[in-house]
């Protein structure tokens, strides 16, 4: 099409990961489509950050179970990304010439979409992932990148030393120039962890993507291959320190944790923030109804819920039903979950449309376990039916129809 307007920076969102550490929650959906915070999905955060940062052209790279993610993103309208120029684009792998190739790694996914990026002739490319909960102004990071004439800028934040080995960490000089980068080191020499948010000068990135593709040894991954390779060639790479709230939600525990953070008296991340709104697709449900037997203690409840039980320290997505006598505590209930009379749900994540029947108990501590220590999180998969009086013990993940272990 003519008159395609160039962009200073295009964002590429890596949304192809399977997210296998989220277990049953990602059996049917890609990780970025996993629900979060009562009415959001993880991908709402990077998408909203983009729009709020003034970035209006976003490619979303998908390959694992994209049906729901694609339907969720749709035209991009909920994020104001339904533009005549730019907007949001779903970029699946495809067949070129005679054969197709799946995305081999994060860098390869970008490599396969060089043509897409080139359409907008950007000077910079922002690489994002769909695994994190945070609010960040990428424009400020770009300013730094430009000011330092960097080839690559990596957003970092300080993590506790004991956790540093879970991340890509980097050693920097006084000017935050990166001296060393280690992917998940056993003995980290720094606690500046990569947030998985990169800005590259496009010409430079393209050059390295093409090199990386030719390297048969490479796993075609940003953290493992491309960034170390750039560093070894002494390219100008800087860290950009981010000081706000940032949470990787790649595991059941961290996902649960991040949800619970929203319920803290001084929540470290505030979603009710008009100038930096997190947008999401509207479920279009009637308002919630709170019944005559409801007891609500520190809860976040969304449209379409019908609550007649006790909700404590929990987050309920749209259309959840909790009947009288049921108790839901320290839990996250995705859309359409039903908790019937006198059932108990504690320290659990219930996925969409699961049904917890009368007197069932989700998250019951095993008698053999010590009472102390953090409780393990139970997960009930999408569409699962837990039969009346059945028990799912703390830390278990279940799917299908659960009849086991009728409670004494």
């Amino acid at each position, binding site marked *: 099409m003519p008159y395609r307007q160039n962009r200073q920076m295009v964002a590429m969102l890596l949304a192809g990961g399977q997210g296998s550490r989220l277990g049953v929650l990602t059996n049917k959906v890609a990780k970025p489509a996993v629900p979060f915070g009562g*009415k959001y999905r993880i991908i709402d955060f990077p998408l909203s950050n983009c729009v709020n940062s003034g970035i209006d052209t976003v490619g979303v790279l998908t390959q694992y179970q994209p049906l729901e993610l694609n339907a969720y993103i749709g035209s991009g309208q909920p994020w104001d990304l339904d533009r005549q120029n730019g907007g949001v684009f779903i970029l699946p792998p495809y067949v070129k010439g005679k054969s197709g190739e799946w995305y081999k790694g994060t860098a390869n996914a970008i490599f396969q979409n060089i043509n897409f990026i080139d359409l907008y002739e950007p000077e910079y490319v922002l690489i994002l992932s769909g695994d994190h909960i945070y609010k960040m102004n990428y424009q400020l990071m770009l300013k730094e990148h430009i000011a330092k004439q960097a080839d690559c800028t990596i957003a970092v934040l300080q993590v506790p030393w004991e956790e540093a080995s879970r991340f890509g960490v980097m050693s920097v000089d006084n000017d935050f120039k990166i001296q060393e980068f280690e992917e998940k080191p056993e003995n980290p020499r720094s606690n500046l962890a990569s947030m998985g948010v990169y800005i590259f000068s496009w010409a430079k990135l393209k050059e390295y993507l093409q090199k990386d593709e030719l390297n048969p040894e490479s796993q075609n991954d940003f953290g493992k291959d491309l960034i170390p390779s750039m560093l070894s060639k002494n390219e100008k790479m800087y860290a950009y320190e981010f000081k706000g709230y940032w949470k990787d939600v790649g595991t059941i525990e961290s996902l649960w944790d991040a949800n619970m953070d929203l319920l803290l008296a001084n929540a470290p991340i505030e*979603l009710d923030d008009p100038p930096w709104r997190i*947008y999401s697709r509207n479920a279009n449900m009637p308002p919630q*109804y*709170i019944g005559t037997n409801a007891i609500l*203690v520190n*809860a976040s409840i969304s449209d379409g819920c019908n609550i007649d039980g006790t909700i404590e320290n929990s987050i309920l997505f749209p259309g959840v039903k909790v009947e009288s006598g049921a108790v839901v505590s320290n839990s996250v209930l995705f859309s359409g979950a039903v908790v019937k009379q006198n059932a108990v749900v504690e320290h659990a994540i219930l996925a969409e449309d699961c049904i917890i029947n009368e007197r069932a108990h989700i998250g019951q501590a095993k008698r053999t376990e010590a009472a102390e220590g953090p409780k393990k999180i139970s997960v009930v998969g999408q569409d699962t039916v837990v039969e009346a009086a059945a028990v799912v013990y703390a830390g278990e993940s279940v799917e299908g129809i659960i009849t086991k272990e009728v409670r004494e």
Partner: protein
Amino acid sequence: MNALGIIFSYSERENLRELTKRRTLASLPIAGKYRVIDFHLSNFVNDGIYDVSVIAKNNYHSLTDHLGAGKEWDLIRKRGGLRILTPFARHDSEKPGIYRGSIEALAYNMHSIRRSMAEYVVLTGSSILCNVDYKDLIETHIRTNADVTTVFTKQKGALGGIPQGVAIMNFDENNRLTNIGLETEENNTGDVNWGLDIFVVRKSLLESLVADAMSYGRFDFNEDIIKRLISNLTFQGYEYNGYLLEVNTVAGYIQASMSFLDPYVRAKVFQRPIYTKNKDSVPTRYYDGCYVNHSIISDGCRIEGTVENSILSRGVRVAKNAIVKNSVIMQNTEIMRDVTLDHVILDKDVIVREYRSLSGHATYPVIVEKGSIV
């Protein structure tokens, strides 16, 4: 559906006091997050009518604001879609202002109605919420070879009677209209058929009926078209038996609002989606010490106090020790500490300061105007 839906966004016989001082009836907030017109538009859309014109008369700023281009109702269309017909947008703009009855309103907007490619027109007012099955209505209209089909009911209104000012109708054994009169009694509780102000008519016939009536200076649909032509044309009745809420008066409005606390009404009303403007609200937060009982709460509220038997719109704040009972609370109101409200309608953007107490009665609730600080 090969039909154009026309909604009159105002009511000629409403008495909603302060509630319609700055808005037209169709944009009156109801049931928490909705406006009255959401129900009418959603009914059309749910029955496949994607060509809808809304006739506005005055005070329609909040209505156009709410509807925008019609995105949320899926009414941005290449063919059909949503049109808001405002009197000032007329070609002969030297006569802005007030229509003398529904026929004049139709006549002045006929240039736009004529452009629709639909064969049939479904007309409805705003003040009665119901869910007539338009597909079946139109099919019945076609099958019975009626000139005009009019929807009636035998049900009583929310207050146990028949709303004043509606048309009382008699039908023969084939549901053909034999007689039409105006209800003048207040709260007639007799056993009569009354009209819901919903009509189906072939568009070409509507055009000539309207042109005809206009040329004689006649402006009322019931009086000047139906009554006068009852022996020349076939007016067919179509009985409606579903839910029915009427909001022409404050008492009716509060009654209709409260009826959403009834699970049966909710189930009926929300059987199909009701679309409304999306506000990107956050979920509602309930804090330690709150007590909520038998209430409808919309997204984006923050509740620290007590809410009982009430309807809350989006973004309402109820501070500690505040008590809200039997009340309808509209969007973005703030109810501060130790306030007590009973039988109150708080319009949008109201602030009620600490320790204030307001109390009305079911038949005469206190209304606090939009933007007031109490």
